[in-house]
């Protein structure tokens, strides 16, 4: 299970929306061994592509060193899919090189609803996990104050989309 502060999810979705239709990517750092994502670090997509992302290697070194100096590790590594479901592609699986990280995928294919799913990827094996949000939403509070609807700005859909077909489903 990934437990993450609502504000961090909002910041990740805002980053993905901002870069749409290009894929957005980044990291959420947290204290080593804590499994707690605490510090959101949006990264450049060096490929600036709608279907591929890659951290800029120089920026990555700087960010990884900074995490090391602060006794942090990448707790979450996220990127967006901008036209397809938020499920790891074969490319995502072959590159997954941080065994302790939660791989968070956001799909921005729907302009109103961001789909968010989280995965562990170890030795090429993908396992989905639930996402639990904690904390108050600044965005929702502002939205509530402005127009009485806590979900007017952006809604989130977690886990497998009900519209998706599970071909592996056995009776």
């Amino acid at each position, binding site marked *: 299970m990934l437990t993450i502060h609502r504000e961090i999810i909002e910041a990740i979705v805002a980053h993905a929306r901002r870069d749409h239709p290009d894929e957005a990517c980044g990291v959420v750092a947290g204290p080593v061994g804590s499994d707690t994502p605490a510090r959101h670090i949006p990264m450049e997509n060096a*490929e600036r592509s709608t*279907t*591929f992302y*890659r951290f800029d290697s120089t920026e990555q*070194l700087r960010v*990884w060193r900074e995490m090391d100096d602060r006794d942090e590790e990448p707790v979450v590594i996220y990127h967006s899919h901008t*036209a397809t479901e938020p499920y790891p592609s074969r*490319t995502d699986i072959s*590159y997954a090189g*941080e065994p302790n990280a939660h791989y968070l995928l956001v799909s921005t294919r729907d302009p109103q609803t961001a789909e968010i799913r989280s995965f562990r990827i170890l030795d090429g094996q993908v396992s989905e996990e639930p996402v639990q949000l904690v904390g108050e939403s600044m965005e929702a509070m502002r939205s509530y104050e402005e127009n009485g609807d806590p979900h007017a700005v952006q809604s989130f859909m977690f886990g497998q989309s009900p519209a998706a077909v599970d071909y592996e489903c056995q009776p």
Partner: protein
Amino acid sequence: MAIDVRIPTILRSYTGGAKAVSSAGDNLAELLTNLDGTYPGLRGRLITPEGGLHRFVNIYVNDEDVRFLGSLDAKISDGDTVTILPAVAGGAFGLAAAAAVLGR
């Protein structure tokens, strides 16, 4: 001469859990061969069977990505730090298609 080599989490199974190890070599190719002598199997995770640098890893000499320093020919001097990191990449596109398009 001693080169400080930083090992990423995913490869620490080769170094007995060590986060940093010491090795030697005048260039990256030599260093990786020496490292593999001490930690067998490590080189195979960094170099393809064809002998090129694996696209799944980034290797740096001090602050510079070795892809800008001649890759395996990158010169290394006593006191340098070599950092290995997993490349973070992916996306909706298939790997084979991406490799073809990007010419990698």
